[in-house]
């Protein structure tokens, strides 16, 4: 068994991928939430930015996050990373490292993004899905159910996207839409999951609004780095989440 005071020997490193190109809609908060919730448990956490031109030393990191963003930056990213760091993102996903991609970051992981004018930006193809730009934006508070870490969770967030994402039959969605639009407003799916890579349209940020999901991601990363170690082990304190739960309830009251 681990001693309570031994928690500090654990170290986690969070990489904010392409933080110079995709950085709108408050998703920077996802990395903050992960880091703080690890630190409060006595686990050292470090957040580092990995910018568009930077090399990715994927083995140095335990969790990756990609934020939402907008055109034209999103377009620049699509054009550039396929030839540069795209292969490493594939390695990250295939080796089972934890990756959370939101909105534009999520679209980037798919096969392609097609604009309303028919221009097609090839994506990284690590998730078997594609995105087509619609006439209007799908916007609003929304919620979806999702199964993660053995728990069924009700997730709440804010969606704001013009792209409609469609999953291939082989791909598995992250969850089912309870209210709002989700991936495309038609088939009731929201997000996608491949190994430990999670794609979602939820801003909010999603890990702030849903602290259980935040812990589930942290737990996946922790247990894969330190075999057999989990966040609910007795060596880690149980966090007081009254404030988070209150914020979650407040967000849920906004659902139509």
């Amino acid at each position, binding site marked *: 068994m681990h001693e309570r005071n031994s928690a500090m020997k654990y170290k986690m490193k969070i990489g904010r991928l392409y933080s*110079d*190109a995709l*950085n*709108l*809609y*408050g*998703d*920077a*908060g996802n990395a*903050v*939430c992960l880091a*703080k919730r690890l630190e409060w448990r006595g686990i050292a956490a470090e957040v580092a930015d990995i910018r*568009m031109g930077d090399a990715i030393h994927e083995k140095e990191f335990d969790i990756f996050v990609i934020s939402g963003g*907008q*055109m*034209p*930056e999103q377009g*620049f990213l699509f054009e550039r990373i396929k030839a540069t760091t795209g292969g490493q993102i594939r390695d990250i996903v295939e080796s089972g490292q934890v990756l959370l991609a939101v909105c534009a970051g999520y679209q980037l992981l798919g096969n392609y993004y097609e604009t309303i004018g028919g221009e097609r930006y090839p994506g990284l193809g690590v998730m078997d899905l594609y995105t087509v730009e619609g006439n209007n*934006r799908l*916007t*609003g*508070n929304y919620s979806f159910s999702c199964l993660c870490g053995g728990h069924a969770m009700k997730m709440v967030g*804010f969606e*704001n996207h*013009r792209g409609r994402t469609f999953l291939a039959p082989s791909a598995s969605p992250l969850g089912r839409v309870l209210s709002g639009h989700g991936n495309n407003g038609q088939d009731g799916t929201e997000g996608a999951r491949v190994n430990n890579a999670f794609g979602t349209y939820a*801003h*909010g*940020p999603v890990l*702030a609004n849903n602290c259980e999901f935040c812990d589930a991601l942290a737990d996946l990363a922790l247990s894969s780095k330190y075999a057999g170690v989990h966040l609910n082990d007795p060596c880690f304190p149980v966090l007081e989440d009254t*404030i*988070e739960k*209150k*914020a979650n*309830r*407040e*967000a849920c009251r*906004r659902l139509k």
Partner: protein
Amino acid sequence: MKQLKRTIAIAACRFLYGIVRMAGFGGSAFPGSVANKIDSHLLAELAKNVQVVLIAGTNGKSTITHLIDRCAAEGGLHAFANLSGANLKSGVITSFVLNSNLRGVCRQQYAFIECDEFALAALAQELRPVGILVNNIFEDQLDRYGDMTAVLQNLISGIQSAPDARLYINCDCSYSVAIAQAVPNPKVYYGCNLTLNPAPQHNSFFCRSCGTKLQYEFHVLGHLGAFYCPCCGKRRPAPDYCITWADCREDGSSLCITAPDKEIALQVQLPGAHQVYNALAAYVLAVAAGIDSARACKAIGAVKNIDWRTEKIGIGDCRIQILLTKNPVGVACGIHTLTQTSGRIFVLLGLNDEAPDGTDVSWIWDAPYEMLSGLLDRTDSIYVCGSRAAALRMRLKYAGIPAGKIQMAEDDRRLIRQLAKKTGNVYLLGNYTYTYKIRALLRAQKACTKNVHKRRARKACTKNVHEKRARKKFCYEV
């Protein structure tokens, strides 16, 4: 027939405006929208002989409009402005109707019209402006606008429908400059050569022509600064009017403007370093409208409050400074203003998520609330309120603000009664509808406090009271 329709539209608008006012509502959009239904060409007709200047940008529109309105009055210009802040087409119609006679002839020669980023295209077409000012473009209300590109496109198409309008552009804003460079209109650039707010900026910006990340010689605030593209060489244009020196304090600023032909010293009484930009913009517009430079400076220097956006209200021994902060850069400016204060302070943070605020509050995670930790040793309490108080409360937790410093205020009225009993300086950083609402409550409380004092004074003078008190067995020795 046309004339009759117009007169009916104007009369209806005025009548409804009167009713709305009497009912105690501030809104001026509704009467204008009715008038527009009756006569859809009304606005273009009313503006026919008026020299219109449109004022756009994410932050500072209302402040600039108020300042230029004072300048126009001081300079003896026959001018009006939409000071109510109703900056969509319907509100602008009301504003024009109130300055016209029943036949549809506008009494004023100039109009300074604040306008929403998305309304500019429609307004420019009808108003045929002689000038358009773009103060800045920041991340704001993205649930409504979608993304920044949509905002830029709208502004560009608006300006294209007014090819003769002179553009007044903040040359430190790469977005605003991109707009200006997409159109052939004549341009006047204004900017600042100093760092006004050292808060770190969360996002970087890319050259709109070649897609390279922009570099900066220096930052002014947020993404504003002396940008340049290391690839294609595009850079911040040289400003025609430039702030070359500034001393910014919590209660106002002194600044020096270098104009093409001279240097001007200007005093601003509005709190916060970011206000020097707004003062500069108003000065540039004033000079362009032919107002004497000294008169413009005098008028700008005399303004202490901007409506409910930047206002100081005293209740008893409590002085409450309202600072409207509605997006990440606004919060950075607001908190920076707090760092310039001295002594013990109370901080009140309000967050609503109604339509005018933007229904998405994710942006609070892009705002540097971590800066508050520098103020904690002299902050008694941070009150968190508004319809999304819990979201903001959580944000503060993750910004490292200790729980003991934070108080959740569920009821605004009770909060204000609490504040009214305190002695000291309260700084209220709230977004749009929250600030609007709390200001009304503060005013009511102020009036109420005054009345209570008066009543108490009157009561103390009358024997009657003492008798009543004696009867109620309040042990008083008279």
